[in-house]
């Protein structure tokens, strides 16, 4: 039972990574005679197992390419916000002082906005691109990493071996990297899993609202939004990518809970 999330995530990684090699899809190619065909129907390019959308584009291909988009954006955002958050958190927790105060107030200010709202405003202000989406998502995602690692640094700095290193005259940077940073690894991995789920959801939400990725990119959020106007006649356009998205998030959530139970520390924002 505990292995299920790993298996499901491996399938997503495989489909997202290798699927685009096998399935050809061009988001701007429309085929009018294949419009709104149900799952399993015969279309000009073969069998559309998950049906086609309002422009005759294959929904299965959109699900596969969307998996790649979600995983790439999720990973990029988690890596960026993890590096920034861990760096700021450990430095603030270890050195304390004005740096720590500035960090605490800065986080207070960012938390005054609902995370998705800040993301919408940042993403909407700039030209639609992958870089802008990753930046907008990272703008709030780093906070949890900073909070968790700050707490760990605060408690670890008082431990005997850190004090011993300080007395021996080990440079502060080395103390931080060799004696503090390793202790953040477990909780950071657990947190990264949960953040990945939140980021993938937020990206889909942005694209659903039409302020996320450019139209040339394939995103589950966009496909779901496109299908909304055909709900009465072609339910599969919105329903199926949503199932793919939900299944992914559920499994990451379970994995994240397992990891959190093992490593403790929760810094998840509401």
């Amino acid at each position, binding site marked *: 039972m505990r292995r299920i999330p790993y298996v499901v995530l491996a399938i997503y990684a495989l489909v997202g990574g290798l699927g685009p090699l096998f399935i050809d899809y061009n988001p701007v190619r429309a085929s009018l005679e294949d419009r709104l065909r149900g799952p399993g129907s015969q279309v000009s390019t073969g069998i559309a197992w998950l049906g086609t959308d309002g422009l005759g584009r294959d929904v299965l291909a959109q699900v596969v390419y969307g998996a790649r988009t979600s995983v790439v954006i999720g990973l990029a955002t988690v890596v960026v916000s993890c590096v920034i958050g861990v760096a700021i958190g450990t430095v603030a927790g270890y050195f304390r002082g004005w740096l720590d105060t500035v960090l605490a*107030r800065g986080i207070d200010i960012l938390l005054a906005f609902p995370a*998705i709202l800040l993301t*919408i*405003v940042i993403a909407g202000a700039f030209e639609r691109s992958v870089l802008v989406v990753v930046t907008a998502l990272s703008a709030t995602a780093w906070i949890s990493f900073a909070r968790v690692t700050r707490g760990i640094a605060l408690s670890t700095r008082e431990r005997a071996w850190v004090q011993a290193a300080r007395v021996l005259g080990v440079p502060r940077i080395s103390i931080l990297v060799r004696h503090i940073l390793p202790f953040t690894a477990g909780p950071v991995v657990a947190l990264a899993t949960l953040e990945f789920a939140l980021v993938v959801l937020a990206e889909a*939400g942005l694209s*659903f609202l039409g302020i996320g990725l450019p139209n040339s990119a394939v995103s589950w*959020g966009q496909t779901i939004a496109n299908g909304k106007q055909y709900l009465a006649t072609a339910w599969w356009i919105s329903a199926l990518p949503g199932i793919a998205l939900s299944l992914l998030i559920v499994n990451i959530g379970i994995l994240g809970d397992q990891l959190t139970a093992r490593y403790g520390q929760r810094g998840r924002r509401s």
Partner: protein
Amino acid sequence: MFRVIVKRLLTGVLVMWGAASLIFLIVRVAPGDPVTILLGTDASAEQIAELTASLGLDRPLLSQYLTYLTDVARLDFGRSYLLGQPAMPEVLERVPATAELMLTSTAIAVVVGLALGLLAGSRPGSIVDRIVSACTIALQSFPTFWVGIMLILAFALAFRMLPSAGAGTPAHLVLPSVTLALPFTAIVARLTRTSVAETMGEPYIQTARSKGLTERQVLAGHALRNSLIPVVTVVGLHMGGLMGGAVIVENVFAWPGLGSLIVDAVSNRDYAVVQAATFLIAGIVMLFNLVTDLVYSQLDPRIRLDGAV
């Protein structure tokens, strides 16, 4: 108590100043200049110069920032170029619809969440507990906008029981508020479950049972009451998250609240409205956090705000 409130309010003012500055920064860094947006691309050089001067955009950045801050202090965010009206009144007009949605959702989430949590927490490890736990994980993970669309598909299109979009009658409120409430219900249920399960092991529960109280009385009188405290906190602290959810849900159901206003304004680069709305929301979230802290300390005499919280 009074000193605590004053201190929190002062911190709040500091946070709001930071929030206003952050909004200023984002809007200034963003490409696309407001004059071209207001006049369109075929304006004459004279018109552009005139509007630039009248908006103060030719002055140094610091002086623009100071003017901006004094305007913010008077809640003046300029005119919405789309609506032609001052931005703040337009934003305030949308508040009741969003408040209606959020209040209904909170009520649903608290009532259903408490019931589910009590059901699961009173018999930890039972089949009911497992089912409730599985449901809460699912509800928390499903993307709200997709759940909303699926509800439209089922209840508006297939069964034709409820309207799919718009506002006005109580029937219009059902689908959006349920959609918004679902993940929140899961959070309340999980929290109540943990808290009730913990409380059931306490000695005073055993005492209550040995006094001969029925299981129902024990649950309602002793276990539930103690579990209410964390629920109050999570409801208060979750207003920000609920607000964020409302932004998306309002767009799914064309609900005429703050959320659909913001997304429209962001898409059309109507920065006056974007600034007014984000500032207002930051203020509301901050007030909710303050009130939650105060209510929390009143509910549980073990908590004192003067110390570290």
